[in-house]
């Protein structure tokens, strides 16, 4: 099993986790949850968009522009695979410790 390097990075992992739990979230909400800057969030969100793990919807809330992100089915599967990978690592380490 190979580690998905795209979501192994902390900000991108945070973005996917937040969207998986909180549904569609606005740019400002994501920034607050992940705790990063506008520029950093944009760059990492773009990478996840390019991989089709998330989708970006741009619209207006009255006259204010609103950028909203949502996780795709592919992104949800990738996060699940990543979680499985982490659990497998922990399990393997436990088994190795027990066998000693």
């Amino acid at each position: 099993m190979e580690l998905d390097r795209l979501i192994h990075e902390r900000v991108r992992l945070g973005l996917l986790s937040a969207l998986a739990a909180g549904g569609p979230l606005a740019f400002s909400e994501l920034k607050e949850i992940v705790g990063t800057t506008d520029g950093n969030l944009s760059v990492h969100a773009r990478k996840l968009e390019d991989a089709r793990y998330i989708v970006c919807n741009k619209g207006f809330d009255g006259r204010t522009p609103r950028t909203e992100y949502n996780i795709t089915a592919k992104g949800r599967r990738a996060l699940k695979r990543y979680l499985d990978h982490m659990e497998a690592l922990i399990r393997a380490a436990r088994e190795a410790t027990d066998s000693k």
Partner: protein
Amino acid sequence: MLRSLARRKLCNIKYLTKLKNRLIVRPMRAKDATSNGPIALDRRAIDNLRFIRETMERAVAFTAVSGWGLILTGVVACVAGVLAARTDDRRAWLEVWLGAAAIGFSVSALAMWRKARRSQTSLLSKPGRKLMINFSPPISAAVLLTAALVRSEQFDLLPAMWMLLYGAGVTTGGAFSVRPVPLMGVCFMLMGAFALFGGSAWRDGLMVASFGGLHLVFGFLIARKYGG
């Protein structure tokens, strides 16, 4: 003189001069007394899983409060306001509002539970627990003060006290939720302050405006912007 200079090569003069105080360049990374080598993979995996869980909990906090639940609570408060205004008996007035509070609380809790279930989260998650822990003390104080004020027949103080303490609970509990929630709490407290110092004559009107109007306005806002 010239011979001694010739013996000292220029490179030695310029670059290999001895410094009186030796420069000590300290490593930028702080010394970690506990680590004796690279971090184990399983420890990193545990750390990653913890990070995912905490991020998910923070994200859920943004959507935990149900807007539709608040709207229904607002409707219940409006109906209670109409019923309470029709009665002159203070005990009956109190029963109407206590009944409305019980119905409103149940409706809100049910709506929150349904919203949490829809987003596949638990109300007993960390943000949910934080909300309850911060909301409970002012509400418990309100219950005790209600009993004390009813016992001393000071019914006129009840609406202001309810608005102030409910507002305090919503403000502190709402600190872990979407921004409209603590803002609603502040509005309740402002209306409570007004009722306390000048608005006792409009007791029922203020109750409907706060428990009815504020719940309807903010409930609609949350339902529209934060997924129900």
